[in-house]
């Protein structure tokens, strides 16, 4: 028995004998504990309205659970038997019935659906909410635009119970875009009461209060400390959730989060280091669910507008010099899907993400670098987001070490999380690592954000290619027209081009990892990767 096992076994003994349980539960408390889900995570929401200015990702989770959308996705069985949202199948949520025509879709609202203050949900609330999403600007407006939802005139109130969405153009993404988090339906009368001339959409009110018809409502929220959500007993859009109350606590230290889970004090946590997940998986005290991010990859990006990375041969050299497998083992602990090393001659598939054919081959990298005119390498800076340092820091250290072998001398630059977006926006960092994942799980959606010449913030490399733009536009048109052969051809072409030009080198597809107590069931994977409290059951 080595030292480590010894320590572990002591910990286990302490757990098994349950020495001095910190609190004795009175029966009433035990009951409330039974119906309460305690979630711990590193950070919490800054705004509980997804239409708000600068709402962070934890804020999305609150919005998802507290508001309803017209439609949602069906579930299917995903990897390892975990329920997984079905990209192609929709189910009614607030709408009872959906009728998609050639250039419009009509929705009939569910009878008896009420907002949390008791007022019935009407078509004008839906219109007001959609108008708001396409008008307030920033992220919600951009997300709506991704599904060609751009103008208030597109949303027409037919009668109190019926709303029609007119299409600007044929776009395969319009219906899926109505099922993301952004087009949530709000209590328009309630919010309008709190609107002012300076704030016509009542953003200040919804920032702090929920005004939806959803299954949960926020009853207490201390930013940076905790969010308490209570079940909406009147929820009409699905079976009443089993969990009565969700307490979501922010615990900044990852070691403490793991301790809370292992001692059984917390029910769920999802942002622990990979190593912790890997270990907890093997000791089987908790349920660990690991699922690849849909449509997401972590990559090494290169600024293609500045030497030396403006030279495609240099970029290929870098792609041959990255320590792919080491990263998989030492950084990800196997909890990721490799996106490298496809056997030579593998046919390109009509899917994304898929593995490229580069592999760690220092000799080849050296030779490419010499032929590009850098026989002695060069100096550069590799930047990463400090907010995800648990993965990024060891990853970058390995990259630094590996690139040193081909003479590329790298300085590491950690950038605080809040400034990361700013730095990406400037598009001046020569070399960096980042993750991108798209809510809508379509290759052309990913490429539209990350490789298109419109140069969005996620085209972090500043990559511009008329050829690429042509394929992406071609795929979108073909998808809208339902022309499968043309669609397939375009998707294969843009994937091939992305791998040949290699402005960014995909490393792996990260996993969403969730650790739960054994008595917790009902986890479902959603495109937004946050928790859906509605289906959880505490046994």
């Amino acid at each position, binding site marked *: 028995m080595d*030292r*480590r096992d010894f320590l572990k076994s002591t910990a286990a003994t302490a757990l098994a004998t349950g020495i001095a349980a910190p609190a004795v539960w009175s029966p009433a408390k035990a009951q409330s504990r039974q119906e309460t889900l305690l979630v711990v995570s590193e950070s919490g929401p800054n705004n509980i309205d997804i239409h708000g200015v600068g709402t962070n990702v934890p804020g999305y989770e609150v919005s998802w659970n507290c508001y309803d959308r017209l439609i949602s996705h069906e579930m299917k069985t995903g990897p390892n038997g975990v329920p997984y949202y079905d990209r192609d199948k929709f189910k009614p949520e607030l709408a009872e019935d959906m009728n998609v025509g050639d250039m419009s879709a009509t929705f009939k609202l569910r009878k008896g659906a009420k907002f949390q203050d008791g007022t019935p949900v009407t078509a004008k609330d839906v219109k007001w909410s959609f108008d708001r999403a396409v008008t307030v600007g920033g992220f919600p407006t951009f997300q709506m635009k991704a599904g060609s939802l751009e103008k208030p005139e597109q949303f027409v109130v037919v009668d109190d119970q019926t709303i029609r969405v007119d299409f600007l153009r044929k776009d395969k993404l319009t219906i899926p875009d109505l099922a993301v988090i952004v087009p949530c339906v709000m209590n328009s009368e309630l919010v309008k009461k709190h609107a002012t001339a300076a704030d016509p959409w009542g953003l200040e009110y919804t920032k702090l209060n929920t005004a939806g018809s959803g299954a949960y409502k926020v009853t207490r929220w201390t930013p940076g400390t905790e969010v308490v959500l209570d079940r909406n007993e009147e929820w009409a859009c699905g079976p009443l959730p089993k969990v009565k109350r969700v307490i979501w606590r922010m615990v900044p230290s990852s*070691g403490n989060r*793991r301790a809370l889970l292992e001692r059984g004090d917390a029910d769920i946590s999802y942002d622990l280091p990979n*190593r912790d997940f890997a270990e907890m998986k093997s000791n089987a005290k908790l349920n660990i669910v690991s699922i690849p991010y849909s449509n997401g990859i972590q990559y090494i990006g290169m600024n293609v507008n500045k030497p030396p990375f403006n030279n495609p041969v240099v970029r290929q050299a870098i792609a041959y010099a990255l320590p792919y497998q080491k990263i998989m083992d*030492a950084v990800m602990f196997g909890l990721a899907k490799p996106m490298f090393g496809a056997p030579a001659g593998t046919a390109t598939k009509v899917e994304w993400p898929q593995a490229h054919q580069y592999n760690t081959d220092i000799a080849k990298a050296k030779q490419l670098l010499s032929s590009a005119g850098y026989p002695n390498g060069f100096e550069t800076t590799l930047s990463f987001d400090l907010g995800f340092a648990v993965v990024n820091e060891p990853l970058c250290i*390995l990259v630094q070490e590996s690139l040193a072998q081909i003479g590329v001398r790298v300085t*590491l630059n*950690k950038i605080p999380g809040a400034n990361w977006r700013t730095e990406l926006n400037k598009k001046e960092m020569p070399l960096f690592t980042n993750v991108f994942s798209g809510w809508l799980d379509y290759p052309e959606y990913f490429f539209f954000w990350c490789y298109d010449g419109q140069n969005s913030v996620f085209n972090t490399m500043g990559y511009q290619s008329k050829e690429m733009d042509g394929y992406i536009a071609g795929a979108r048109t073909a998808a809208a027209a339902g022309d499968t052969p043309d669609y397939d051809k375009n998707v294969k072409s843009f994937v091939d081009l992305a791998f040949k030009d290699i402005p960014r080198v995909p490393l792996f597809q990260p996993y969403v990892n969730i650790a739960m107590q054994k008595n917790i069931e009902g986890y479902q994977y959603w495109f937004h990767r946050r928790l859906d409290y509605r289906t959880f059951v505490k046994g």
Partner: protein
Amino acid sequence: MTILSEAPAETKRPAASGLMAMVRHTQYVLAENPVTAGSFALFIAFLIAAILGPSIVPYDPLASDTAAALQSPSAHHWFGTDQLGRDIFSRVIVATRLDMTIAIASVVLVFLLGGFAGIAAGFYGGWTDRIVGRISDTIMAFPLFVLAMGIVAALGNTVTNIIVATAIINFPLYARLARSEANIRREAGFVHAARLSGNSDPRILMCFILPNIMPLMMVQISLTMGYAILNAAGLSFIGLGVRPPTPEWGIMVAEGAAFIVSGEWWIAFFPGVALMLAVFCFNLLGDGLRDIVDPQRRT
């Protein structure tokens, strides 16, 4: 208002002839006080590690070896290995130089800034005194660690900035100590004598006042050296430490802390011990120095 301000006024000490007596007294104190003697030995060990470190360690402190990641201490890796398979023993030893640099450089800097400002304030009084006093008060009114965080966050997390930030937050300690000591001696007989024999003010400051204050300042210096290392460690914990992959005790403890619950205790433990021993050694050295400097206090 410093830890040391209660020290009774130093009596004038003859500068040169006392040297031998001083050495003898030091020997006496070391023999008498095993704790101080131990801390002196430790200090010398740290200095040796700082000077020779990189050339005596068994592994390259930066070289990763993912096949040997997270190994517990063994004959090969005395202190085990970290997540990337780097040898912790080598990293701890090599880090000594950087940590000593941070400690010593920040102390030298604050001595030059705070010490001289304080001496001038105490000697000249009036406006000089008021300005130095106000600067000290303003710095003291900040929560010191947060001020250091702010400086490093604003100027960037380089070693130089960590040193500067540490020096700035210690400024009031030095300025106040030097001021009160200089103030006491301003009217002392030997200063009058020096002035009468035609010495200029700067010369009096440098050649007569400074040497008399030095012993007490040395005590302060050894104490703040410990805090400088702790300060750097705290900055690392919140992500403002030195750049990876540079080995530094604080950042190693901060990163290793996340591994404690999962049982890989050695990652944080050994750098933690090194850090603790260094701060410990500086602190005890401070106490010892005080005994050497101020024999009356011992009897």
